[in-house]
């Protein structure tokens, strides 16, 4: 199964050096997953200060500054992995450095036909 691991946390909780080592550790994790054929993709995201939200209502496009929801913890990155089952996805999530400060939300992908 494919799982999206969404890494949430308070983006101000990291010092620059912590963030750097988080990137290094995350990169190691992606290499390890790749070697096991479980890596589909991963990326950290720029802070929410860069976020833009778009809504289309009555055919009209509305563009606003900011994230979908103002919350204490924000989406800061993701891993997209192939795992046998939820237990395997949980054990991968437990190795994501962001899990130690924030929360990793595991969402199974809904696979539908006809996507490009």
């Amino acid at each position, binding site marked *: 199964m494919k799982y999206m691991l969404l890494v949430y946390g308070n983006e101000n909780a990291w010092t620059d050096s912590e963030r750097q080592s988080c990137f290094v550790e995350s990169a190691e994790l992606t290499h390890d997953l790749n070697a096991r054929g479980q890596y589909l993709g991963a990326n950290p995201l720029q802070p929410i200060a860069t976020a833009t939200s778009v809504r289309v209502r009555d055919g009209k496009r509305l563009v606003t500054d900011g994230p979908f929801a103002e919350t204490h913890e924000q989406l800061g990155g993701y891993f997209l992995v192939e795992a*046998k089952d939820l237990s395997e996805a949980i054990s991968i999530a437990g190795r994501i450095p962001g899990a130690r400060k924030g929360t990793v939300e595991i969402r199974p992908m809904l696979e539908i036909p006809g996507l490009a």
Partner: protein
Amino acid sequence: MAELDGEQVRQLLADVYRSESRRVFATLVRLLGDFDLAEEALHDAFAAAAEQWSSTGVPDNLRAWLVSAGRFKAIDAIRRRSRFDASLQEIAGRIDTPARPESDGDDIEDDRLRLIFTCCHPALASSAQVALTLREVCGLKTEEIASAFLTTPATIAQRIVRGKAKIRDAGIPYQVPSIADLPERVDSVLSVIYLVFNEGYSASSGESLTRADLSQEAIRLGRLLSEMLPDPEVQGLLALMLLQESRRAARSTAEGDLVLLEDQDRSRWNREQISEGKSLVERALSSGRVSAYTIQAAIAAVHADAAGTATTDWSQIAALYGLLAGVEPSPVVELNRAVAIAMRDGPASGLELIDAILARGDLADYHLSHAARADMCRRLGRTADARASYERALALAKQEPERRFLVRRLQEIG
């Protein structure tokens, strides 16, 4: 093959259903990979047995026969439906080729463990874990679970449906967890069992008998788990449940009024449950890995050894609460330790400790801390303080028997 007439087969099937149906179900879930398919296959298997056993004779290995009949019925059903639904063809192909023979005894036991661990997976909501465990592992009807939890069958049914949907869609595996994950996963199973037990135990108000059955069900689950997984923590919980349950007959009056430990008629304690509980505590303690359940069981065992509160080894109880506070720190544990110290050294020392807990703001809204404080004051002859604390406790207590007890105490101190 044994020859039986129709009535004998009906009787046999009723017995087999009681003793084997959840085992057969657990194996069918593994073979079919789906809870609903397995439930349907289980009923088809028993229907086939009712039809065939009186004419062709009773098979030697009933369980294997039922598993195999259930699997074939499910394959037939899926084949029929897959003509209309392409997504079922893949399932039909998969279950057509069994990976392992069903007669393997170890595997069948493993299936029951798989079922328990799956129903108690921490990725499921706690309410779903409880409902799924009682429904799928214990085989209780939705209506029975609902009446035990004082809720509607529709609510319980919804929890079960949502739980099964999450198991399927999130890919919760049907397996016994790896050694690395075992402690966390066992914790989750034990909390479900203890929650079920307490739901049945704390509400023995005499007005809903079905709730006492929940405690029986929890003990049965604890026994089952302890047989399959002889882990000290599991033994500790089973011991704790047995030792608490041993006091059931003595802890309330025929009218459903609460009887405090110190006032209980100890001749009504169930000696059989006590001796089983005590030997389990000893085994769990000797492992060296001491869990909160085991310590609480040890405390209950000290009470069980005494003829009354005067001869209870309160030093040991106070020491055990101290140990418990180290393993699982909580103000409730501190409160219990204070009560034990009051029994050992007199109410003044207990009152000092309770006032310190209350002064921190902990347990200010907990009726038992005020009831305990009231009791210390009463014993010290501080009637006005006792009355104020009983009144505070009464304002906070929710259960009827506890409220009646507090009203009685208030009347007694005048």
